[in-house]
C-alpha cells in the first residue's frame, strides 16, 4: 500500500494505491491520519480509486482511520470505492454510517466538507 498526499482547499486528499490487506504496512494509513490530525488537518478524503483489493483486515484499517478522525473532531470521507469495499460495508452494516460520505466525483467530495 502506498499513500500520496495532496491538498485541495482545506481538504487533504490521500491517494491510496495497492491492496489494503494484513501485512507489514497495514499501519501506515493510521499513522498518516494521526500525523494529519496532529497537524490540525481535519478534513480528509481517502481516494481509493487505485485500491484493487481490500480484505476484512483492510476494512478494519479504514474503520480505524474513520474512528480516529471522528474522535478528533475531523471528517473522513471516501472517494471511488470498489464494489468489493462496498460489499464489505454492506455486510458489516457500516454502510449507513458511511453512506453520505462516499463519493464518485472528487470535486463534489471536496466541496462537501
Amino acid at each position: 500500500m502506498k499513500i500520496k498526499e495532496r491538498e485541495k482547499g482545506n481538504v487533504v486528499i490521500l491517494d491510496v494505491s495497492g491492496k489494503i490487506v494484513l501485512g507489514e504496512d497495514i499501519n501506515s494509513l493510521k499513522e498518516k491520519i494521526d500525523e494529519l490530525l496532529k497537524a490540525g488537518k481535519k478534513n480528509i478524503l481517502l481516494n481509493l480509486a487505485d485500491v484493487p483489493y481490500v480484505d476484512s483486515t483492510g476494512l478494519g484499517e479504514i474503520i480505524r482511520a474513520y474512528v480516529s478522525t471522528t474522535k478528533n473532531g475531523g471528517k473522513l470521507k471516501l472517494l471511488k470505492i470498489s464494489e468489493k469495499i462496498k460489499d464489505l460495508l454492506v455486510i458489516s452494516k457500516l454502510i449507513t454510517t458511511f453512506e453520505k460520505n462516499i463519493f464518485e466525483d472528487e470535486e463534489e467530495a471536496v466541496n462537501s466538507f
Partner: protein
Amino acid sequence: MKINFKSRKDKCKEKVKLLEKENEKLKGIIQELSILNDIAVAISSTLSLEKIINLIVDKCIKHFEVEQGAIMLVEEKAKMDQPALYTMVRRIDQTNYIMPFRLNEQLIGWMLKNTKPLIINDFSTNQYFQNTDSSRFVIHSLLAVPLVTKNKMIGVLALFNKKNKKGFTDGDQRLLSIIATESTQVIENARLYKQEQEFKRIKEELRMAFKIQRDLLPKELPKIKNYEISAINIPARSVSGDYYDFEKDNNLVHFCLGDVSGKGMPAALLAANLQATLRGQVLLNPSITDTLKNTNYILYNNTSPEKFATLFYGVLDSIKNELKYSNAGHNPPFFVQTNKKKIKRLEKGGMILGIMEDSEYEEDTVFFEKGDIVLIYSDGISEAMNEKEEEFGEENIERFISKVTDKSAKEIAETLLEEVKKFVGKTPQSDDMTIIAIKRIN
C-alpha cells in the same frame, strides 16, 4: 692471538645474543599459542554467549596486559531504512570504569565502515577519534579488530590502555586478529543458539495459548433431537481470531460464530474476551437483541476503537423448530429450505461489534422443515484466495450448498472445507476458517 681470542669471544657473545633473541621469540610464540589454545579450550566447553564472551575478554586482558577489554556485538534493528542499524549489546569491563559513550559510538561507526584492525597509541594526533568525553576513565591507547563472519561484521573486539608505556604493537594486532577470527564463528553460533532458545520459548507459549484456546471451544457439540450440528475451526496461525460456541438449555441451543479483526495472538485474546462477555450475557438471559447490544457496549468500552468483531448469534428451538437470530455485521449465513428449493440469507441484525458505543440490533426468526440447513461461515472461507488472487466467493458457497442438501451436517461442513482447500491449491491459508452446519433431519 689476543685479537683472535677477542674475536672468538665476540662471536660467542653474538651467538648467545642471537640464541637469547630466538628464545624470546619462541617464548612469545609459545605464549601466543597458549592463549589461542586457552581460548579454544575454554569456548568449546560452553554454549552460553555470556560465558564465551567473558572468557575471551578475560584471557585477552591478561595476555595483552591492558586495563580494559570489551566485545561489542552489533544487532540489526527492525527498520532497515534507519541509518543507525546497530546497537551495542554487550560490554565487559575489567575495572569499574565505563568507556566514554561517544568513543564507543565512534569506534563502532568506524569499524562498520572500514572493517579492519585499528591501533591508536596517541589520541592527540588522531583526526577521527577524539577522546573528549569528560568521564573519569581516560583512554590513551586502543587496539580494536572486527569480528567478521560470512562477509558480515557481527561485532568488535577491543582492548584499551596497554599497561606499558609503548602502547600496542603490530604483533599485538596480528595476534588479536587471529583471536578474533577464531572466536567469531563461536560467538555467532552461541548467539544463534540463544536466539533459537528464545524462539523455542515463544513457540512453547504459542502452543500453550493454542491449547487454552482449543479448551475454550466446546469440547463436544450439543446433541438435540431431530437435528445434526457440526462445527470446524482451523486457525491460519497457531491461534485463531475466529471462534464458535454452543450452550444447550433444554430444548434450546444458543450458538454463535464470531470473527475478531486481525489474526494471531492479539485476535485470539480479543476472541476469548468476546466469548466471555457473550457467555456472561447469555447467562443473564435477556433477549437476543439485548444480548448483542450489551455485548457491543462492553466490547466498545473495553477495547481500542479499531478492534472490532463480527458475530452471528442464534437460538435454535428444537420443539418449535425455529431459529431466532441476530447478525452483527457477519457474512450472512445461508438458510437452505430444501423442499421449497429456496435459499435465504440471514442478514437481520446490526453493525459489527465494538465500533459504536450504542448500536441497536434487530432479530429475525426462520422456521425449519425437515431437510433444512443453516450454514454459517467466517470470511476465511468466502475470502479464501487461490494463486490467481481470486476469492472463493459467496457464489461458490451458494452453489456448493444447493448441491449437498442430501448430505449430513458433518459431511456438509467437511466437504465445504475440502472444496475451499481444492480451490486455493498451494496458496497458504491467510485467515482463520470456521464453519457451522445445522440440519433438521426429522
